[in-house]
């Protein structure tokens, strides 16, 4: 790609994600990785939104794998501030990973480019375990950073909420890796109950965040994460009790919207968390 070609708007986000790599590696190769990614997106954008999403999906999975590899090779030397900074990126990345899960809900209405009967849904599901794991890890840093401003009760609530999603992530990834029996009938019920407990914790945190202005921006995003999915489940339950069968399009649309809201919410929280830390660093230049 020539320099005068305007890069795809989402390249800026990838550039931010490259901060996840160790500093030395990033300084040596970061700009070249961004250039290659911009070239990939430039070519993919000629083939439409699906190709762009495919490039993003490959790049995200590649990013998670290679960030771990680079840290493992270099030896992990992490301070509290570098861990909390990393956590803000993990929350953003976790949020981004929820978006393919949401996208997969529409599978049956769109033409399948890969040929399988429900392959988009299946691909979307593969992002769910990593998304939950990234959020769980990101929340650890969040508690570490904001813990002093939270009451013991809210902290305990957050730790329970985080343990639940962490456990679900590990079981979800184990399931994806075929480490669990395939016909795991109660997995779905475990997921629903786990999500409700986790999201209740996030709603409680959201109310507290709004009251005490925990973050400098986007405090309402906790409610964006926490509310839609339980509402979807509650409405679904009422509809079932009333023996009404909603159209699949409506059901899947509602489900996709609640998952997309969750993804968007974590991206906003991660970004606000990141900006708060940058602001503190600017206020304390000597630290």
């Amino acid at each position, binding site marked *: *790609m*020539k*320099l005068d070609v305007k890069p795809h708007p989402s390249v800026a986000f990838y550039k931010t994600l490259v901060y996840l*790599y160790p500093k030395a*590696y990033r300084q*040596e*190769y970061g*700009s*070249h*990785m*961004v*250039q*290659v*990614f911009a*070239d*990939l997106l430039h070519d993919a954008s000629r083939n439409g939104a699906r190709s762009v999403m495919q490039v993003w999906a*490959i*790049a995200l*999975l*590649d*990013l998670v*794998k*290679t*960030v771990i*590899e*680079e840290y493992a090779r270099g030896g992990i030397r992490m301070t509290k501030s570098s861990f909390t900074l990393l956590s803000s990126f993990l929350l953003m990345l976790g949020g981004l990973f929820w978006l393919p899960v949401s996208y997969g809900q529409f599978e049956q209405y769109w033409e399948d480019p890969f040929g399988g009967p429900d392959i988009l849904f299946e691909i979307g599901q593969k992002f769910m375990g990593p998304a939950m794991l990234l959020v769980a890890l990101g929340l650890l840093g969040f508690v570490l950073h904001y813990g002093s401003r939270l009451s013991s009760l809210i902290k305990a609530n957050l730790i329970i909420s985080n343990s639940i999603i962490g456990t679900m992530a590990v079981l979800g990834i184990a399931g994806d890796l075929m480490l669990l029996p395939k016909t795991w009938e109660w997995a779905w019920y475990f997921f629903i109950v786990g999500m409700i407990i986790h999201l209740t914790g996030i709603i409680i945190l959201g109310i507290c965040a709004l009251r005490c202005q925990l973050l400098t921006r986007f405090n309402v995003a906790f409610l964006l994460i926490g509310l839609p999915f339980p509402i979807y489940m509650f409405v679904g339950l009422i509809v079932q009790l009333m023996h009404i069968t909603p159209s699949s399009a409506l059901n899947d649309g509602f489900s996709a919207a609640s998952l997309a809201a969750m993804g968007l919410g974590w991206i906003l929280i991660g970004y606000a968390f990141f900006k708060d830390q940058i602001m503190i660093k600017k206020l304390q230049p000597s630290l």
Partner: protein
Amino acid sequence: MSKSKQVSEKDLLPLTPAVFHILLALAAEEKHGYAIMKEVEVNSKGQFRMGPGTLYGSIKRMLELSLIEETDERPDPEMDDQRRRYYKQTPFGAKVLKAELQRFNDLMQVAKSKGALGSI
């Protein structure tokens, strides 16, 4: 002292798919990162795709092992972005690629003798 003097080509086999494909992509001429990616995609008929992280992680390790090196040469400076880095195979890299291809060939012979190739 370069690692190529300490490590023989056999020590590096089998190569990871990324390293093998990058060496193959650089067999004929020097290329920058994105050109390597496109070449790998063509050579593998679209079956092997790398993300930017795998590409540059592999390049970093290949530079450390002296399998490839950076080059200042530009195929056509007017057509290209000067900030790009170009890479080319080293003589040691060429030897490693040849040894890997020889390994594939030996495996093909074994498969052939066992009738595993069928009608291929």
